[in-house]
């Protein structure tokens, strides 16, 4: 579909699509903004958590008596303080077990006890006085090793689901998934060339600069308040209330400004513990994770092992595609392997496709979502093989992908048929982009890859109140992780026809607004945005009704235009237009406060596609890779605030660069994390990178009034393979394991030299 031919793109947007300053900007550049660890309360105690030094151990006995007697210690909690109130909800039980170990410690860093004391030193000393009797057990941290018969078993309640016959013995394989259609065996028979490869990726962390932090305050009447940095304060409220046996209405959670999340703050880790401590001590308790704890005890993403087999004809048409994905998600079920499997071949138009996924547990921290969970690893594997195939049939990577790309009407690899999608436009635009024509220097190579993410909607609630001066107060329930408040104000201003700076958005606390799902799935601009638009339209109905009242005419004889109520036609009456301010000023006399609401479960999110291009330079002596040039082309549906859309493209691409080149969880033989700090868990720094060029395409999503598609996650999907393809072109070696750190590249170069 050509880019500019649709209804939505024809709409003449007044403010949507511009780049005004964000409403929370001044606070953020002056240090005034309050993040998770910035709150204090009178009488506040410091909470600290004791964590298992063992990767796998039975906890035979916990003795907290000495710690409780230490002067200044006001509360100590252990598993005894967390009775099981999960009522058969297996996923919630896993959360309970994760936030405080029960009969076993399942990973190094697993919480085993916690104290609240008058200051940090006393809390630290108290932890040292807690005596734990561990029976150390054999551990396993590698996904393939965990699947082998004879591997140490973490849970004797796990019997692999999705296999026939059902196993009689427990194992570490939670579930088998299978997606696809057609007949891959028949498809491979039709292929002239088949490439089959195995890939491994190591676990990475979202790497948000702000550690988890919260301030809990539970009173003697059992009513609680919680200040927390989170991607979903309603989720925190409901989860903590259920775990602690509190009525949801008794817990009020306020979302602080959040210093990064990327999916890692869509669950709870320290919050139930802080609340339990506060309830026991009857005083506010602040708990802040150290960076060491963040790496060891929050939610990194899965490490994976992936087999990919793809067959093509000599003419370059894929005849069959088959993948087996093994993902470990830490000590509890729920690695994102099903999304990996579903998204593996999503970019391609395939007659015969199959993706099998295995969810595996290991003695590592329980994984949490990380930007397009499960997809980047799968794309790394597939896009590497695609590149190899393209070269084998004598086509460029981009032409091969264009030839096999999914488009509107294609049956996706995960099942449903695609509506209008933006993959081909990104590929065709990439082909014309100057980056493709730029000359390459010595030791440099160019790579490209495609990526896909689902995006989705979720429960959303927005309240829009018109103040008596005609300005607007907008309350949303999705924490602002990327500048979304600015976009919400743009959409409200667009609908109401008033200037952007007359709208002010806040993230309301859980007692002030109905339920909102977490900020994830790239859903905020889509779902909260759509709710904002509909709440504004609801407010407009009320504003026009008030104008009708003021003029003494029927409400349907009034229209709304550019911030003014106007008679609908000459027959309605010859009244001068009433501004929003004029109507609002009379609100008290015409029926009371004027507000618009929208509460719903948003659906109809549009999938989004991206193509990335990268030039990399590999130093043959050190194996170090330098990213020389990087371009992101992605379909945003409609870019409400283009600067923040570009920011998402760039941020996701750079996380992918770190994942591809340097970042990894390194475990010792003892099952302990060796690099739990930013020195040795090396994320990209400013001097590692060039400018990240961005191209925003707009293929409108029919499910949103402005055509918005989520943008936050897709940009982390292509980089791993883009860079693998660039490194392969630059150094002449193809790496099949991530990260492609210098020692690995050197080793590959040495092997290549030895073979020659």
């Amino acid at each position: 579909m050509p880019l500019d031919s649709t209804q939505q793109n024809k709409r003449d947007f007044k403010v949507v699509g511009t780049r005004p300053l964000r409403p929370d900007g001044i606070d953020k550049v002056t240090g005034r903004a309050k993040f998770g660890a910035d709150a204090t309360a009178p009488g506040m105690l410091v909470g600290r958590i004791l964590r298992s030094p063992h990767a796998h151990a039975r906890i035979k006995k916990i003795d907290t008596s000495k710690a409780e007697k230490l002067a200044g210690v006001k509360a100590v909690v252990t598993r005894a303080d967390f009775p099981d109130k999960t009522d058969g909800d297996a996923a919630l039980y896993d959360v309970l077990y994760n936030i405080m170990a029960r009969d076993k410690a399942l990973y190094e860093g697993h919480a085993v006890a916690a104290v609240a004391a008058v200051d940090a030193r006393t809390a630290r000393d108290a932890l040292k006085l807690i005596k734990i009797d561990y029976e150390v057990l054999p551990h396993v941290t590698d996904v393939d090793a965990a699947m082998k018969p004879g591997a140490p078993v973490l849970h004797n309640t796990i019997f692999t689901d999705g296999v026939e016959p059902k196993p009689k013995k427990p194992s570490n394989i939670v579930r088998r998934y299978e997606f696809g259609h057609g007949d891959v065996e028949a498809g491979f028979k039709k292929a002239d060339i088949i490439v089959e490869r195995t890939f491994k990726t190591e676990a990475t962390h979202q790497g948000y600069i702000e550690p988890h932090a919260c301030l809990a305050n539970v009173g003697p009447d059992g009513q609680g308040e919680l200040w927390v940095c989170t991607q979903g304060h309603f989720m925190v409220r409901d989860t903590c209330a259920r775990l602690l046996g509190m009525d949801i209405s008794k817990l009020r959670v306020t979302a602080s400004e959040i210093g990064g999340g990327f999916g890692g703050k869509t669950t709870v880790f320290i919050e139930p513990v802080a609340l339990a401590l506060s309830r026991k001590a009857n005083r506010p308790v602040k708990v802040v994770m150290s960076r060491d704890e963040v790496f060891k005890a929050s939610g990194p993403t899965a490490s994976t092992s992936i087999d990919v087999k793809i067959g093509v004809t000599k003419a370059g048409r894929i005849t069959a595609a088959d993948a087996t994905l093994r993902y470990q998600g830490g000590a509890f079920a729920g690695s994102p392997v099903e999304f990996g499997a579903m998204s593996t071949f999503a970019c391609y138009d395939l007659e015969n496709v199959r993706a099998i996924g295995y969810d595996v547990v290991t003695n590592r921290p329980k994984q949490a979502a990380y930007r397009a969970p499960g997809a980047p690893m799968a794309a790394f594997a597939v896009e590497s093989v695609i590149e190899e195939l393209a070269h084998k049939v004598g086509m460029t990577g981009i032409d091969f992908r264009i030839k096999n790309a999914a488009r509107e009407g294609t049956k996706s690899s995960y099942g449903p048929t695609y509506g209008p999608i933006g993959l081909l436009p990104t590929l065709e635009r990439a082909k014309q982009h100057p980056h493709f024509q730029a000359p390459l220097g010595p030791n440099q190579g160019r790579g490209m890859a495609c990526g896909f993410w689902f995006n989705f909607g979720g429960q959303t609630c927005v309240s829009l109140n018109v103040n008596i001066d005609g300005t607007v107060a907008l309350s949303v329930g999705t924490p602002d992780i990327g500048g979304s408040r600015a976009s919400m104000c743009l959409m409200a201003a667009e609908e109401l026809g008033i200037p952007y700076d007359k709208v002010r958005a806040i993230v309301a606390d859980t007692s002030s607004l109905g339920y909102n799902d977490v900020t994830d799935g790239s859903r905020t601009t889509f779902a909260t945005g759509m709710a904002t638009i509909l709440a504004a339209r609801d407010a407009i109905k009320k504003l026009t009704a008030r104008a009708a009242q003021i003029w003494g005419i029927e409400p349907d004889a009034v229209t709304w235009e550019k911030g003014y109520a106007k008679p609908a036609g000459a027959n309605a009456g010859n009244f001068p237009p009433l501004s929003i301010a004029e109507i609002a000023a009379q609100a008290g006399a015409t029926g009371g406060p004027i507000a618009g609401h929208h509460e719903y479960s948003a659906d109809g999110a549009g999938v989004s596609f991206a193509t990335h291009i990268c030039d990399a330079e590999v130093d043959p002596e050190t194996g170090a890779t330098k990213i020389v040039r990087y371009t992101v082309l992605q379909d945003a549906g409609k870019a409400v605030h283009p600067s923040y859309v570009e920011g998402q493209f760039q941020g996701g691409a750079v996380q992918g660069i770190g994942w591809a080149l340097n970042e990894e969880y390194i475990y010792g033989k003892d099952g302990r994390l060796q690099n739990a700090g930013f020195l040795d868990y090396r994320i990209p720094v400013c001097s590692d990178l060039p400018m990240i060029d961005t191209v925003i395409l707009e293929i409108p999503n029919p499910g949103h009034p402005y055509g918005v598609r989520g943008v936050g996650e897709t940009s982390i999907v292509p980089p791993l393979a883009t860079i693998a393809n660039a490194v392969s072109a630059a150094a002449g070696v193809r790496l099949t394991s991530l990260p492609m750190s210098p020692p690995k590249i050197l080793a590959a170069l040495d092997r290549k030299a030895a073979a020659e």
Partner: protein
Amino acid sequence: MSNIHVRTKINGDVVEYVCEADETLLDVLRNRLGLTGAKEGCGTGDCGACSVTIDGRLTCSCLVLGAEADGSEIGTIEGMANGEQLHPLQRKFLEHAALQCGICTPGILVAAKALLEHNPKPTETEVRFGLAGNLCRCTGYDKIVRAVMDAAQEMRRA
């Protein structure tokens, strides 16, 4: 552990405090003085979110003891604006959308200001190396570098 009486200047104001011998300057700023602009991202001097200047020199306040600040002049993010008037760097960060979550922003602004005070006409590479001690996970640094170069140009014209 004995307490130490410290007398220092912070953002031009004379400040006195009492702290423990092993307390970091970062802890003092945040917990005793209420200056929460500097953030603890790692506690080991690897992320730069706690950046301050001590006698004009860019420093990680998590690696300095509160007691060591005695007799020095400390510059924090809270002192960057001049009343209502934002520093050009602060303005340019907003114009260029050089922040997303904003947690690294105070540290990066302090580092950028220190950089431009030493080198008013940096190249892009010099800006990138000047900020290499400040981790940002949201932006990919692109808009940050543009904002700093733009602010440097404006400051040179003034």
